[in-house]
């Protein structure tokens, strides 16, 4: 079943094969949780939103069209849930951002230094992303962390590819300014 395409799994799941749906969950759990996590800044919130998104997906599988890209449909659900969550102000706050001080203190030996640098980068990125508006943050996350093309991003956020291009430029410029202020680009 692992070798089946998304569409084949959707068809089987629609017919009541819950194991087929489980394969879809396993296939997409990481990108969806990662997206929600970068958007909310909270790993705990991200898993809750991702879970709700998969449950919603299960109930609306009949809406997935054969020619449509399955991941686009799934990310649209996750994106809408995430924005509702942010609008409701339910966020439990940043629970995964490691402080820069912590990462420096934790460094010991070559592998420790490498790991500390990785944590330092994550902390900078989290802080810089947090300062972006959700409109800019979502296109940056979908492009840079999920590797999606402009057309897929446009379909998920419900705008034209030209708008994605503009938002990416503004988002990147703001990130550049924030990271320069933090002195992060000198790393």
């Amino acid at each position, binding site marked *: 079943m692992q070798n089946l395409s998304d569409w084949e799994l959707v068809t089987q799941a629609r017919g009541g094969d819950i194991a087929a749906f489980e394969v879809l969950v396993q296939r997409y759990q990481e990108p969806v*949780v990662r997206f929600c996590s970068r958007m909310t800044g909270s790993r705990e919130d991200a898993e809750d939103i991702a879970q709700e998104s998969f449950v919603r997906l299960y109930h609306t599988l009949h809406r997935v069209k054969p020619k449509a890209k399955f991941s686009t449909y799934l990310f649209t659900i996750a994106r809408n849930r995430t924005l509702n969550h942010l609008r409701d102000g339910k966020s439990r706050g940043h629970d995964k951002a490691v402080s820069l001080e912590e990462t420096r203190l934790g460094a010991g030996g070559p592998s420790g230094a490498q790991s500390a640098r990785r944590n330092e980068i994550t902390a900078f990125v989290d802080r810089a992303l947090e300062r972006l508006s959700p409109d800019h943050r979502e296109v940056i996350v979908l492009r840079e962390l999920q590797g999606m093309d402009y057309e897929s991003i446009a379909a998920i956020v419900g705008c034209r590819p030209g708008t994605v291009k503009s938002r990416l430029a503004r988002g*990147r410029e703001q990130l550049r300014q924030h990271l320069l202020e933090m002195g992060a680009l000198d790393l």
Partner: protein
Amino acid sequence: MSKHVSLKELSAHLDGQARGAGRIQQHLQQCPECARVYSELENVQGFLRKTPQEEVGPGFAARVMCAVREEAQPSKGWERRYPWALAASAAVVALCAGLAMFAMWAFEEAHTPRTDQEIASDLDSLVLAWLDEMEEMHMEEGHQDQFLDELAYLDILLTMAADPELEEAMLVYEDEPHVDELVETLDEESADIFVELLATYDQGAWTP
């Protein structure tokens, strides 16, 4: 030297999406200002891509499947999953009862039966007012997606309210092909809720 490349084009160039990539590349070789900004944008991109990929907790998929199975169980009915639908049903019953009382009063007053169109028009206005109220409530609470679902059901109710064959459409919906078509436009779960709403009409002794 040509004028500076816009930020939008530099950003698109990073993704290989800029028009005139050759011209931009040539400009970057000649313009230190643009080359610096572009290099910093590349660093930003590198930074984002260097962020470690988070791993999902080991029990995540199992939790999702547990939630899916729980939701799929028939014992967990629509009234528990959608408590607002229960409130909506109650409101529909109250609305119908109010309208029925109004219709009876009007009948007694005028001694002339009201036409189906008049009843439909009254119901239409009441449902529209109710819709506005529900929209305000759900928008305030930030339950836009629930509201949109709800709107889909109410859209159907409105369609039915505007139907001159109102009484038959509501009470004998199973025999009405156009109602079946409407129900078919809903997903299975929504259709179930809708049928429950219609059943509420049956129990509400709708007697215009």
